[in-house]
């Protein structure tokens, strides 16, 4: 891929990230440690023909909190931004996420989408999800989706019928949920290292 840049991090930079002309930026946030103050991450599209693929994986345990806000500001034509956030919440963990897509006047042919999927794996987990859209021009494609739910009972049952015990079945499904977007990263080494991180983080989690 031409002019492709990949960033994998577990820290949220407190600044605005500018996606440049003709650039394709891959940005992966791996978060399994919480924080207290709301963190805001802004992506700005000032130059045309810029693309962002954003992926956040959040694994919440104990009393970890994830107060996060992402803002996508589109100021020029022909920009694209695709956000995917996956959170798996155990114990008393909490996600408080606001994802805003702002498309300003004259940013024609913008295409952006935001999806936030949450697995609620404990009765005491909490989630607050606010995906917003602010659109001031018509020549756009914009949307967002959010789902909040639990592991599909039927899938667990299927895996159990294949000989897995309940816990392994659930862990397998959670792993798959968190890893499903990794295949879009065009770098196998990075993919592998992320999978390892996920596996490590999921060790010893409590599921009820």
């Amino acid at each position, binding site marked *: 891929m031409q002019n492709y840049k990949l960033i994998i991090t577990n820290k949220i930079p407190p600044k605005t990230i500018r996606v440049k002309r003709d650039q394709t930026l891959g940005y992966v946030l791996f978060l399994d440690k919480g924080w207290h103050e709301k963190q805001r991450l802004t992506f700005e599209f000032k130059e045309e023909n810029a693309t962002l693929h954003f992926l956040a994986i959040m694994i919440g345990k104990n009393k970890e909190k994830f107060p996060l806000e992402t803002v996508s500001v589109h100021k020029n034509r022909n920009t694209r931004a695709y956000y995917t956030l996956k959170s798996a919440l155990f114990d008393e963990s909490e996600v408080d996420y606001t994802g805003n897509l702002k498309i300003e006047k004259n940013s024609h042919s913008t295409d952006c989408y935001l999806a936030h999927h949450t697995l609620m794996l404990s009765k005491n987990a909490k989630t607050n999800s606010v*995906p917003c*859209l602010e659109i001031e021009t018509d020549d756009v494609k914009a949307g967002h989706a959010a789902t909040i739910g639990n592991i599909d009972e039927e899938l667990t049952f299927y895996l159990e019928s294949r000989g897995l015990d309940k816990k392994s079945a659930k862990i397998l499904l959670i792993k798959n949920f968190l890893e499903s977007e990794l295949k879009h990263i065009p770098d196998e080494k990075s993919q592998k290292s992320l999978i390892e991180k996920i596996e490590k983080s999921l060790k010893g989690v409590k599921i009820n």
Partner: protein
Amino acid sequence: MSVPVSTQKIIKNTLGEYKFGFKTRNKAVFKTAQGGLTAAMVKAISNRKKEPKWMLDYRLKALEIFEKKPMPAWGGDLSGIDFKKIHYYLQPQDRPKNNWEDVPKDIKDTFEKLGIPEAERKFLAGTGAQFESEVIYHSLQKELTKKGVVFESTDIALQKYPEIFRQYFGKVIPAHDNKFAALNSAVWSGGSFIYVPKGVHIELPLQAYFRINAENMGQFERTLIIADEGSSVHYVEGCLPAGELVSNGHKFTNIEAVKTSDLIVTDDGKHHKVKALMTRPYKGTMLKIIPVSRENSFRLTTEHPVLCIQRKINWLPEVSTKKLMATKPEYIPAGKLKKGDFIVYTTPTKTEDNEIFTEDLLKILGLYLAEGSISFNKSLKLNALAFSFGKKESEKNMAEDLILTIKKLGHKASITKSKGLYYTVISYSKNLIDLCLTHCDKGAHHKKLSQTIMELPVEKQKILLKNYLKGDGSVYIRKDYPSKMIRAGTASKTLAFQLQEIIARMGIYANISLPEASQDVIGNRIITRQDQYIVEYTENKKFNEVRRKDNNYFVPIKEIKSENYNGFVFNLEVKETNSYLVKGFAVHNCTAPTYSTNSLHSAVVEIIVKKGARVQYTTIQNWSHNVYNLVTKRAFAYRDAEMFWLDCNLGSKLTMKYPAIFLMEPGARGEVQSLAFANKNQHQDAGAKIIHNAPNTTSKIVAKSISKGSGRSSYRGLLKVTKGARNIKSHVSCDALLLDGASRSDTYPTMKIEESEVAIAHEATVSKIGEEQLFYLMSRGLTEEEAASAIVNGFAKPIIKQLPMEYALELNRLLELEMTGSVG
């Protein structure tokens, strides 16, 4: 009375500091309304309504809360609201006096235009009861009383059912809920109170009477609906007040019967589509402008602009025609008009010849207008067309001449001499009867001319008029000067104004007057007349106060009366041009900038849906574009109950409305479907709130918004699952359609989930009208405009189809109209 602790707790637990479901970020910008709303005023309102003490206390407490609460800093721009300038209480008034008799015919015509089959029309006439309120009201009211249903104005319910009222009032939405709920609690007036007993199902939507019963539509109405166990009810919100006749070219219609997308004539004499019928409460001076021709007088508010030439200081009482013609008429607020100023009477310019109107047919129709009647002959089982003449020899000649004419057209007719020795011409020709009915209607009070006739060339109209005058007219010729004064009398108001229009097309401004019912002699016959409209004009007049310029007549004002008015006024918004004709005179739209103040509509609707009950609440909001529409609506749904809000917002300057449902017990279900259309200078900030407070509850939200011409529409929603509410299913979908680059669409959904056994899905899309969709439809023969309109209609369809039929039709037409001229 204070809000019970249990309710406070529920509100606090579920909403916490998010009183509206949305956080107030900034400090207050609002200053308390010292000059405006006072405790004394609240006391006066309560006193006038003779309310019990607890209600007064409740109001006063609410006032305190209102003053303490900051103005919301989120959502729309509320800076235009001036609490000092708002009328907090509108005294209920008598129902506007109207001539409703001829309205049903219009409705039937509308149905016809819309191509609704006969059977369905009958069905609609039954449910579309809003125009014949009295009849339906009584039959429905009887039915309701029999079932034990209470359906009253909220004020009356407080007097009649104090206990049940006190038990439920302010329980769902306490005064401290938000600033505007507090305001409403302090000054509320009007609204509906509905109690449906256990197991009672009300089939018909309860909407009928509120469309014309202005009493129930205040600025601060309060509605309380209680559906007891296993019952169901559907309530529809709407309003429709009364007014003046407006010209739609061939006939004159009561302004309240005008529908959007109807064609009416404007100051350029051409037909234009009505874009919106707007309503607002008004208290103050109402002016009655009386021009030459007393019956053409009309009433309007002081700020309503009228097309006019103001009399200059140096003009003589007898203005020189030259000076008058050199002056261009301008729109001037009615309050600045003076006696002697010239207002502009306009005649429609559309002319279209139609070959079937031969001289002979016009002669017959002219005589029919004057002397004809159609009745059903029972023994022959046939309609009979009869022309009654006098008993004199000259009348006999006329009758014989008529027979010849009818025969010339190939129809049969005979002459008889009835008891009083009057000559009567009778014909049973179906063809001829149909022509008379189509083009002249029947019944002395209802005769009117068809659009086709009103658009015929002047020469043909002259023939009709000449023959009409043979019957109903009389001529006075002055001896000293060769002028000819012609008078005609008719019982039909519409016909009188139509004749004035025809005569105006011939070049003369006729005078209409309405003498008291009396005995009079016309054409040598003694007639006892009731409300006879006299149309009168003079050919070759020596002195004329009225001047003509093309299709305009400059008519001096004879008198201006002012009266106090307290009630609803309304106004049309017309596409392309901003004027319309009232009694033939051009007036301007009372558009938003000309209003001195903005209006505020702040209602509170509380609904309690008990075990196994169902309530549907439907709103079609089409307020004028100067109204701040800030409404609090909330329902509590208990075990296995179902609450459904259907909310359509097209009007207003700013709407902030988020119908809420609290699902309080297992099995409850809530659904909100909404449609918002934001056009120029409008902001629709609408949405929904659903609080899952119990396990095994489900909800659904479907929100659709359309933004056009720099309009802004926002979806703002809350979905909350509280701790312990297990097994929740909820689906939220928001679709927005942007029609141009200047418009704006926002989506702010909030999901707060505190439980794991949930299945929540939210989706939102924003799109414009797709080139491909347009291209496809255009390849099928639609114009670009039609294609765009079809796409918008398809987009809104899932919401519209849930509406009761007549509202669905109205909304469809509104959307279609908003879309015309929008492409390119």
